[in-house]
């Protein structure tokens, strides 16, 4: 960047100042308070703007307020400069308002204001130089005697300050070094403390928190224990109360039951008294029956029943005896009739059952034999049929043939009639010959000689075979005809005769067969007729034997054949008749025996009737004796007697019961005590019941309790009382303990409040520590990175310029990346020389070069930074000043230099050094007298170029 022209409308004491810069070096010459430094400040304002205050920066204390023109000049500045690429820029700032305006115009080009805006500020210096205002100030703006960057006395201190200044620039833009920043952070970390340092805020919070955790846990446990004990106390109270309720309930139940028992006892006493009176009257009323023999009641009842039964039985027997008397007369009359009948039948032969069975068997055999005798008719009919068949055979005309000859004749007729086949053979042979001739002729015509010969041969062979067969058949027929003539004499064997035979022979064969069957039947029937006659004779013999055995006689008046049959029949009839008489007599005898038994039974019935009547009379007499003994007058009816006796017995029993009841009542009355004592006891028990919350009126609806039940209630009440006492005792002890626990119970809310505060303090401290440590880590990392990057670049930049400016006296420069310690390598010494060991002039030059190098490095390749030097050699001796001026003139070849001074000789020196290329010199007018107007110092100033 090359500054070309600077116009100041108004800025601090300056008004209407115009400066035209030399491309290399411009000297602003003026007396003190003439505005030389203001020009440099205005230049910086043109490049970076002017701070007008803001958050944390009051406007009235801002640079904008400070550099407000002292007079009424317009608060404005205009700067023109050229860039390395040839572009030229014009920066115009109007600063009257706090929110001042800025316009940047590329000369010959367009408005580039927007391109140069960084945030709300238009900063051409930041954009074109690449460094912010702080770095620009620290590197390019060199104040009075500040080529040495400090005024320390010792060389070492000066060098250290150079290094620190460079470190500050590199770390924070001249505010502080990273090491100092880390120290500040560590200081803050120390202030926060740590969890292990009990004296630090964080340590105190952590320690207290640990204590509170324990206390809160303990408090919670104690509260839980307290709650549990309270719950247990309530449980004990409830148990005691429940036991007390059970005791009261049991006692009330006991009292009610007891009162109900007493009430029942009193009522019983009254009832017993009344009943005694009633029962005594009843005893007295039945006293007459006291001697009735109760033990006789059952015998009397049984005896009366027996008497009544015997009487009824005797009456029934009497009725049966009366009925048996008539029957007995009938029986006896019948027996007389039977005796007469038996006598009338007289004595007859005896035909027993075997004889009767024999007779029946003979009768069945006779019937069977007679059935066989009827086959004679069939025999006659069969013989007539046989004769008729013989006549029919004779009528056939071939009767001379036997039955076997007929069968052979039938076959021979068939053979004899075979001559018709010979004619057919002849006809076949002729046809074969004709066919062969025709085939031969055709073969010959068609010139097939071989075929014609074969056809002729086959034809002749066929004709020969046919003729031979015909000859054989003709011989058989002749033989058959000769045999027929022998078998059927008298019958012609020509063709007609053969036809006749063929017609009749089957009929003749059937007739012969039928006649053979009829002859066999005739023979069978004849044999059966002989067997029937033989058996009839045998039956007659058996019948005669039977008659003899049974003593009956048989009549034999029939012929011989029929006599046997009639004999048998007469004997069988006689046996049958004799058997009927015997059966009738037996029947009468049997009936008579039955009547004898009946007669005997009827007699016994009559005897029994007499016996029962006597027994009934005896029992009745005994019953009456018993009744009379019991003092009961017998009545005509036995049943009335029994009723009377039973009534007497019942009366006796009532008397006995009443008597026993009376004695029991008297005993109960004695045992139940007296009503008065019961009343007193009842009153006492009612009082006790009322004291236990019971209602005596409930006695009316309560059932008396038995003694075991009362004992159970007493036991239950005692158990409940003991349980209530035990629970109450435990509750009392626990209540006392609870009181102590409550008084010692911690306030959980208090503890938790403090705990929450400690947690907040701890968390806050831990967050602070984490943030501080993180900041320290990040700063350390950034420091290492930046230093490692910057150090070699700084060294190279300084080395390049230093070699050029010192004509090779120093060829290399080393910059340590930790704290930017600088050492030089010169021609005179082989090793690197620390900066504090080189000469003052060299050290000043290195300091300035380091600033420029840092500006270049930090600018990241921006334009060369112009140097604004304000009285840099004010206190330098002449030799050193000459050297410095030479250095500056040389340096202005790369970096434009604006040097302000109040020493005119410096201008002269420069003019001698420059030798032809004269630097520009701007002379500031002498400061005008100041005067105060409206509370502000105002001075009129006018600059003009030399």
């Amino acid at each position, binding site marked *: 960047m090359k500054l070309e022209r600077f116009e100041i409308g108004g800025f601090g004491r300056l008004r209407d100042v115009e400066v035209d810069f030399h491309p290399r070096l411009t000297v602003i010459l003026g007396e003190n308070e003439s505005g030389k430094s203001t020009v440099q400040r205005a230049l910086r304002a043109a490049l970076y703007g002017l701070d007008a205050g803001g958050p944390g920066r009051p406007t009235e204390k801002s640079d904008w307020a400070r550099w407000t023109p002292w007079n009424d000049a317009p608060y404005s500045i205009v700067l023109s400069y050229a860039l390395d690429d040839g572009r030229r820029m014009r920066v115009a700032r109007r600063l009257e308002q706090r929110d001042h305006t800025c316009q940047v115009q590329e000369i010959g080009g367009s408005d580039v204001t927007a391109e140069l805006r960084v945030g709300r500020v238009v900063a051409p210096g930041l954009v074109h130089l690449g460094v912010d205002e702080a770095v620009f100030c620290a590197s390019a703006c060199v104040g009075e005697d500040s080529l040495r960057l400090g005024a320390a006395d010792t060389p070492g201190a000066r060098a250290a300050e150079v290094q620190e200044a460079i470190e500050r620039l590199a770390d924070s833009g001249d505010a502080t070094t990273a090491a100092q920043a880390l120290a500040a952070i560590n200081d803050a970390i120390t202030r926060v403390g740590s969890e292990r340092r009990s004296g630090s805020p964080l340590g105190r919070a952590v320690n207290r928190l640990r204590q509170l955790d324990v206390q809160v846990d303990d408090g919670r446990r104690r509260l839980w224990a307290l709650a549990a004990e309270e719950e247990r106390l309530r449980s004990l109270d409830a148990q005691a109360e429940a036991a007390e309720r059970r005791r009261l309930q049991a006692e009330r139940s006991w009292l009610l039951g007891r009162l109900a028992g007493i009430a029942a006892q009193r009522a019983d006493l009254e009832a017993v008294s009344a009943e005694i009176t009633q029962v005594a009257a009843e005893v007295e009323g039945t006293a007459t029956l006291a001697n009735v023999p109760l033990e006789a009641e059952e015998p009397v009842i049984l005896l009366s029943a027996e008497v009544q039964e015997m009487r009824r039985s005797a009456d029934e027997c009497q009725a049966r005896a009366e009925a048996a008397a008539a029957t007995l007369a009938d029986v006896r009359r019948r027996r007389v009739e039977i005796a007469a009948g038996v006598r009338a039948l007289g004595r007859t032969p005896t035909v027993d059952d075997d004889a009767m069975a024999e007779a029946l068997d003979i009768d069945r055999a006779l019937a069977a034999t007679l059935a066989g005798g009827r086959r004679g008719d069939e025999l006659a009919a069969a013989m007539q049929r046989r004769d008729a068949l013989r006549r029919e055979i004779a009528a056939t005309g071939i009767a001379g043939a036997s039955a076997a000859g007929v069968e052979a004749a039938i076959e021979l007729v068939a053979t004899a009639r075979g001559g018709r086949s010979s004619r057919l053979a002849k006809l076949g042979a002729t046809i074969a010959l004709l066919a062969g001739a025709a085939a031969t002729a055709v073969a010959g015509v068609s010139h097939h000689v071989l075929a014609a010969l074969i056809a002729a041969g086959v034809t002749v062979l066929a004709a020969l075979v046919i003729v031979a067969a015909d000859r054989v058949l003709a011989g058989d027929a002749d033989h058959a005809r000769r045999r027929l003539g022998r078998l059927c004499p008298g019958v012609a064997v020509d063709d007609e005769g053969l036809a006749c035979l063929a017609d009749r022979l089957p009929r003749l064969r059937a007739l012969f067969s039928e006649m053979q069957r009829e002859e066999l039947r005739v023979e069978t029937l004849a044999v059966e007729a002989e067997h029937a006659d033989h058996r009839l004779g045998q039956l007659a013999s058996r019948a005669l034997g039977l008659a003899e055995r049974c003593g009956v006689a048989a009549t034999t008046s029939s012929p011989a054949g029929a006599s046997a049959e009639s004999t048998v029949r007469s004997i069988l009839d006689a046996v049958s008749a004799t058997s009927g008489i015997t059966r009738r007599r037996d029947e009468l005898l049997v009936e008579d025996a039955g009547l004898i038994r009946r007669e005997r039974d009827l007699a016994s019935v009559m005897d029994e009737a007499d016996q029962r009547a006597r027994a009934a009379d005896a029992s009745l007499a005994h019953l009456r004796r018993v009744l009379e003994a019991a003092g009961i007058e017998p009545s005509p009816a036995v049943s009335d007697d029994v009723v009377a006796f039973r009534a007497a017995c019942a009366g006796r029993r009532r008397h006995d019961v009443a008597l026993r009841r009376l004695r029991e009542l008297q005993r109960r009355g004695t045992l139940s005590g007296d009503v008065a004592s019961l009343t007193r006891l009842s009153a006492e028990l009612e009082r006790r019941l009322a004291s236990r919350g019971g209602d005596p009126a409930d006695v009316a609806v309560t059932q008396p309790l038995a003694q075991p039940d009362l004992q159970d209630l007493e036991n239950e009440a005692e158990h409940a009382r003991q349980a209530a006492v035990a629970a109450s005792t435990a509750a009392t002890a626990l209540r006392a303990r609870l009181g102590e626990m409550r008084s010692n119970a911690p306030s959980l809310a*208090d503890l938790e409040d403090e705990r929450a505060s400690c947690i907040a303090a701890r968390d806050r401290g831990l967050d602070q520590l984490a943030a501080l440590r993180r900041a320290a880590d990040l700063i350390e990392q950034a420091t290492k990175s930046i230093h490692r990057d910057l150090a070699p670049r700084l060294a190279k930049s300084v080395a390049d310029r230093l070699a050029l400016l010192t004509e090779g006296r120093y060829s290399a420069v080393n910059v340590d990346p930790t704290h930017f310690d600088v050492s030089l390598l010169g021609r005179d010494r082989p090793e690197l020389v620390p900066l504090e060991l080189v000469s003052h002039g060299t050290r000043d030059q290195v300091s300035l070069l380091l600033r420029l190098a840092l500006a270049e490095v930090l600018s990241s390749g921006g334009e060369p930074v112009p140097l604004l030097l304000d009285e840099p050699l004010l206190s330098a001796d002449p030799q050193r000043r000459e050297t410095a001026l030479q250095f500056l003139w040389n340096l202005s070849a790369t970096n434009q230099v604006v040097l302000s001074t109040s020493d005119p000789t410096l201008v002269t020196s420069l003019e001698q050094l420059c030798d032809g290329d004269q630097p520009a010199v701007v002379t500031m007018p002498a400061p005008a007298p100041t005067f105060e107007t409206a509370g502000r110092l105002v001075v009129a100033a006018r600059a003009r170029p030399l």
Partner: protein
Amino acid sequence: MSIRLLHIADLHLDRAFAGMGCQGELAIRRRLGLREALRRAGQTALDRGCSAVTIGGDLYEHDRAGAATAAFLVETFASWQPMQVLLAPGNHDALLTGSIYSRTEWPANVHLFSTADLQPVAISDGLTIWGVAHLEPAWQGDPLGGAAVGADGGVHLALFHGAELGSRPDGKSIHGPFRAAAIHACGFAAALCGHYHRRRVDESTGLLYPGSPEPLTFDECEPRGPVVVTIAGDGTVSYEPLQDNRWHARIAVADVASARGLADVVEAATAAAMVACAGLPPDRVILRLDLCGEIDHAVPADTFTVETAVRDTCGVAGLRVRDLTSPALSIAAVSSEATVRGAFARAAAEAADGADDDQRRILDDALRYGLQALSGSEVGLR
């Protein structure tokens, strides 16, 4: 003849006040103040001739309440006899096994609602109060539950701890949700509720939240106290909110943008605190002071120092200072520097990318501390 009731809710006895910066003696005083508020409410009810005191839940905090609290409640309620006390447990004092409610023998004038559905208690002829209990801390049932009352022609009021969904403050938990429109729809003349700590009296719907009698958080700045509910003979219900709180919560905001040093910060903070606490008894004021504005990163806004200074100056009972300032510099411009500071800012920004909220918060503080250190200033801890 009209009947009066006094309704309170959300007393939160035994509450921890560490969240309000109270600890030690101050926290104890705050808790005693809650008990005193209950006593004053009962005395007010007696003075006004109320028939009953209705308590709409969160009477105490179950996690911290102990035997002393139970004894205090028994003693206090007993001293109000024969005036009735109706208790409807809420989510912080749910009717759990082992809770104070269930293990305490209450005086005869106390009626504890113990079911999750509405149960009636007849206060006088024609006035019935139906109550619901939270049986668990996270109960989500509808306290009105589609009830249908009022067929007998009397006046019916509902008493429960629930969250009216139409007016739920941001972030407020939902326990026993219901709609205000359901109050009249179910036949109730009014619903005496608890849960929201800000008072709300809506005569059109019959919804009443009395709010917590004493401020429990910094944002509970408005006047607070019980509400007297009057049921006229014709059945109309009217409400008289009372201002009875003894403690005051305030939030002050101090803009320290123009501060050039810690002294300026303290000065601005003290001025803001004085304005916020003007006219209030300082020994009963709990103040939260928020420092805000863009502040030069070289200025250490040390909250501990500010807190100490403000407390000494204003004498407030409780004070919590929050540093909500942001550094007055362009992080982007710093990040563009080729210096260590620029590299540090870039590294912090890179680390913040993808970090979770906690890490980002740490990195934000680290950036602030680092920039302060690199500016040559003392590191001011937040």
